[in-house]
């Protein structure tokens, strides 16, 4: 009777099965809403030649940036990769492959991957370097390019609360890419601040239904702030 209990108690268990050359989709925007402990576990596992699908690549010593140090990442699929000196070095030296993808297209590609949509048309990127090699089609007098879905061997996600069945709720803008990532992993692993009993989350308030979630681990987070900006004292 434990078929729906998604809770695991160790990081080894959480990331079991991750091997070299896999594709990992990671939630997070900048350093906000990233699965800190799962990234640390991947560093510990020393898995190599990984492809990461993530809007950003963290900073030098936090977020996905820490996986660059050990040269664990072969390729990044991202919309914005500034803020990271080691990234720049590996990219310019050709050690790291980068596929720049417009942010909205990236979010939609991941959503499509989870939703069984293999490809969709978008006006985003038409006539730009992003469109190179992609099919163009006109609808109602406007031109669109064909973008293909993304799925991952793993998805690593940060949520606020999960019940034992893996129903998730996100906190504020730490939501970002996490709901899309959660749907698109063959194995979806979620790191949460709080595990609650089944029934504590209202059915219509659940952001990610547990059907998408394979494993949940409770953690505490550093939640580093990338750009602290304060109101001028009045």
């Amino acid at each position, binding site marked *: 009777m434990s078929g729906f209990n998604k809770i695991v108690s160790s990081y080894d268990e959480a990331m079991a099965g991750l091997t070299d050359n896999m594709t990992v989709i990671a939630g997070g*925007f*900048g*350093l*906000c*809403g990233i699965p800190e402990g799962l990234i640390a576990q991947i560093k510990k596992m020393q898995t190599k030649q990984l492809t990461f699908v993530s*809007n950003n690549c963290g900073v030098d010593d936090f977020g996905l940036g820490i996986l660059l140090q050990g040269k664990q990442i072969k390729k990044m699929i*991202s*919309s*914005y*990769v*500034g803020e990271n000196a080691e990234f*720049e070095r590996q*990219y*310019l030296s050709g050690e790291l492959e*980068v596929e*720049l993808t*417009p*942010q*909205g*297209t*990236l*979010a*939609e590609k*991941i*959503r499509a991957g989870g939703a069984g949509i293999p490809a969709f048309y*978008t*006006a*985003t*990127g*038409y*006539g*730009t*370097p*992003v469109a190179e090699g992609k099919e163009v089609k006109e609808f109602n007098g406007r031109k669109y390019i064909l973008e293909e879905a993304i799925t991952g061997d793993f998805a690593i996600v940060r949520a606020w609360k999960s019940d034992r069945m893996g129903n998730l709720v*996100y*906190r*504020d*803008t*730490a*939501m*970002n*890419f*996490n*709901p*899309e990532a959660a749907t698109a992993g063959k194995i979806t692993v979620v790191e949460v601040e709080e595990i609650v009993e089944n029934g504590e989350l209202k059915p219509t308030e659940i*952001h990610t239904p547990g059907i998408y979630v394979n494993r949940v681990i409770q953690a505490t987070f550093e*939640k*580093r*702030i*990338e*750009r*602290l*900006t*304060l*109101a*001028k004292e009045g």
Partner: protein
Amino acid sequence: MSLNREQIAMRVAQELKDGDYVNLGIGIPTLVASFVPKDIEVMLQSENGLLGMGPYPTKENVDADMINAGKETVTAITGASIFSSSQSFAMIRGGHVDFTVLGAFEVDQNGNIASYMIPRKLVKGMGGAMDLVAGAKNIIVTMTHANKHGHSKLLSKCTLPLTGVDCINKVVTDLAVIEIKDGAFHLLERAPGVSVEEIIEKTDGKLIVPDDVPEMKID
């Protein structure tokens, strides 16, 4: 006198209408939020998943889980909503954001924009800019009229890789307000004390100049 950054933002803010949903890019566009006319309300959309972005927080209210698309700590106003990235770009791509302000390296007379990449320098990525220019109903570009070497940024054809094609309606620079239509720049207003001749000289693309070019009103 050419406008400073705040004055460019002030002029852009005059374009806003009551009830507009607005996305502001990084840099000068961000400043526009400070100059929204007192008699209207607009709602700011931040593409990381926040509609109803408020001011920066006080020290006590800082929350690492509440940031904007520039990764700055922010607050949410009363009536704000928070959603996922795909939902955020559904709004943007679907044309639900009324008004977008963003910076650029170059704009050309066909409404093309180059804003995300200078080849042979490190490419940081387009972030949400390509989606914004493809999706917003009304886009205003803010930039200096010429670069630091004095070369015009209003061209007959962009030289840098494009962010979007045929999408820019209006440009507010330190020298002028310019509309783009029918394959040409149309001079609408000039900065206080700036001559039409200077604008003509610093505009590379085709520029249509009417007989009377009023000065912008900046208070």
